[in-house]
């Protein structure tokens, strides 16, 4: 099974790229890729609890993320230094990610066949 990692580095509502790349992750899983998601830099805000993008007229990233396990995408990681820098409470992130230091992220990337970025 080929491994595919999708990296999210931008804030969830800066543009539509986050949702569009989550769609790519879902299709990858449908094609039997082993898909993982890594949130880092400003992308960790995608995991903020209690999002609501209705007032923006956009899809709520948090809700799309909640649907990922239905596509067998359950390996969700977040950059620990980025979470700390954003002053986010890791226990309140949703879905709950596995926090990775930079060295662990390097290992994760090295294991992948393909890396996509949003």
């Amino acid at each position, binding site marked *: 099974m*080929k491994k*595919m990692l999708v990296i999210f580095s931008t804030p969830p509502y800066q*543009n*539509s*790229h986050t949702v*569009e790349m989550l*769609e*790519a992750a879902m*299709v*990858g899983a*449908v*094609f039997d*890729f082993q898909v993982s998601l890594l949130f880092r830099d400003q992308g960790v805000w995608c995991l903020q609890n209690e999002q609501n993008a209705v007032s923006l007229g956009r899809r709520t990233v948090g809700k799309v993320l909640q649907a990922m396990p239905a596509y067998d995408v359950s390996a969700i990681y977040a950059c620990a230094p980025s979470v700390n820098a954003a002053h986010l409470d890791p226990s309140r992130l949703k879905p709950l990610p596995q926090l990775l230091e930079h060295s662990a992220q390097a290992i994760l990337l090295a294991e992948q066949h*393909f*890396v*996509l*970025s949003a």
Partner: protein
Amino acid sequence: MKFTIAVHGAPYGSFANERALKFCQACVASGHEIVRVFFYHEAVLSGLNSTVPPQDEIDVTQAWADFADTHQTELAVCIANGIKRGVLSDTEQARYDKPSPTLAQPFELVGLGQLIDAMASSDRYVEFPA
């Protein structure tokens, strides 16, 4: 070696297309194969048939068309990203009752599965962000 190329950056709003095109040209010049070029996010605008760049600037759409014609390469525009940004094939123009089709030849509107399928049969996947 087989390559799948994904372009993410807008034409004229970024240099993603120019970088990707140069990379593709270098690949084929070195004997490699481009399985598919996939246009995602704002890069779907590279497939518009209505752009008129200044005479002293690159015509991104035509440059891709020339490359595809020379090397028999498929230029795939994500249909979901494309139609919401106004890139419409004849079929989509009729389906949504819009004034005219806007997809340049030889670009094709395709589903995301075409990106994943190309990746699955490639040795390398290379992205060109904005």
